[in-house]
């Protein structure tokens, strides 16, 4: 028996709501997979360059930073490994957040009629859309491995820890993405803010460069959870070194809290979505 009323879900209490979220997610695993396949199959169907974009994007970003470095606008700094390896790995990790956020933000409004005309678990759209980001990362990580070997370097064992060390970043991205996808359904400005914000953050944070962080920028990054969730996994995978462990752990906890809160915010509000799109 299902009861539809404006307040029924809010009366459940947080514990029950979290149980319902997990149970609904478990029931919609097949749907998430099917929606992922839909996006995967159709993604590059009408694109001239198709899958090449996955490689072109980091190459273009790396080229821009190299150009800015040569012009003296940005200092890439001292890097112990060849820049193509550093740049590609950094971009791949950063892209989990930046592209992940852009894709998840658009996932619900992009479904349009589906949301308005069929009753299904809308968070499936967000989870499924994130699958494309995972595919992009895996392709780029494989490419980084190839380049490592091309330079005659043996990848460290820690390189293969990426499913664990990147999990907090995935949580943070999904949590924020859940909230922004909902807000995007209410106001179409949100995705523009997201793109503007992630572009700005890429310049502020030492993702594509390694110059030492001093002054205001250093202070800002010291309290920025995203800084730890991007930089620490990169250092673990490329150097096998862990700096800022405390910052990483705290940021990981922060990412998890944002994920739970974002998902709950989405879950409780998803029925309002159909009316707003």
């Amino acid at each position, binding site marked *: *028996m*299902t*009861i*539809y*009323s*404006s307040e029924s879900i809010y009366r459940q209490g947080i514990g029950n709501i979290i149980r319902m979220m997990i149970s609904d997610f478990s029931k919609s695993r097949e749907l998430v997979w099917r929606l992922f396949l839909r996006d995967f199959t159709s993604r590059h169907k009408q694109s001239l360059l198709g899958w090449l974009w996955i490689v072109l994007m980091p190459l273009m970003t790396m080229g821009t930073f190299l150009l800015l470095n040569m012009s003296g606008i940005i200092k890439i700094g001292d890097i112990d490994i060849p820049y193509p390896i550093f740049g590609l790995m950094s971009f791949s990790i950063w892209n989990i957040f930046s592209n992940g956020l852009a894709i998840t933000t658009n996932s619900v409004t992009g479904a349009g009629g589906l949301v308005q*005309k*069929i009753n299904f678990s809308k968070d499936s759209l967000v989870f499924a859309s994130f699958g494309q980001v995972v595919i992009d990362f895996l392709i780029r990580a494989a490419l980084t491995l190839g380049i490592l070997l091309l330079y005659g370097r043996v990848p460290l064992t820690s390189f293969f820890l990426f499913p664990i060390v990147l999990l907090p970043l995935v949580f943070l991205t999904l949590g924020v993405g859940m909230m922004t996808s909902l807000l995007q359904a209410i106001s179409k400005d949100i995705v523009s803010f997201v793109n503007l914000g992630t572009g700005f953050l890429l310049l502020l944070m030492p993702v594509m460069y390694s110059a030492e962080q001093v002054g205001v920028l250093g202070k800002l990054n010291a309290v920025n959870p995203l800084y730890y969730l991007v930089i620490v996994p990169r250092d673990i995978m490329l150097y096998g070194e862990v700096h800022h462990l405390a910052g990483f752990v705290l940021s990981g906890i922060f990412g998890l809290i944002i994920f739970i809160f974002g998902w709950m915010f989405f879950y409780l*509000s998803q029925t*309002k979505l159909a009316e707003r799109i």
Partner: protein
Amino acid sequence: MKNVIEVKSVSKKFCKNIKRLMMYGLTDVARGIVNLSVHAERLRRDEFWALRNVSFDVKKGEAVGLIGLNGSGKSSLLKLINGIFLPDVGEIIVRGKTGALIEAGVGFHPSLTGKENIYLNGTILGMKKKEIDERFSDIVHFAEIREFLDTPVKNYSSGMVVRLGFSIAVHSAPDILLIDEILAVGDLSFQKKCFEKIESLRRDHNTTIVFVSHDMNNIRRICDRCVLLEHGRVKKIGGTDKVISAYLA
């Protein structure tokens, strides 16, 4: 007989102004999360009642028609029964798996083939892969698209899209089937086939039907009872002929 749908004093409001709609959306979501009242009974500026104090029941195996002029609230009510919208006031109790045909082809991806869309749409409608595998041939046979299974749906005619959409929905084995006018798109022979299928669902599976249409002949053919809506309120409930007479009067 047991009620499978109970609509209890349901009201639903919408907003005419897009900017206010966004603002109300944000405030409603925020207030709901912190468990504050969203003043559901009160209309804010530019809001209007799409449905007001609507109550009726539908019994297992019954076919009920929702009729009324455009804007009377029929489609909104169907979406409320399907759980796509939530009532602002009142509640709706639904017992059983619900299938909805609110728009033909919704959920189809234009670039994917007919076969890919059968799996996609079937899953969206709550079917497991195994169920789709088992019913795949029946779905294709009923939709009459076997030759076009590997063709992208964007190259289908509107009739083919309706046939495929209808076929997937009826083969998802719903206990309650909600249909909103979509059969008008198909040609006469397919409409006939759809009505025969609806009748067989009722006869063989005791499926409950809620049917929205402007075609009174179709309503007469399918429905045992009707609900006449006017400006979002129930004007008359009763036997099909009586309610249709009141509507046409």
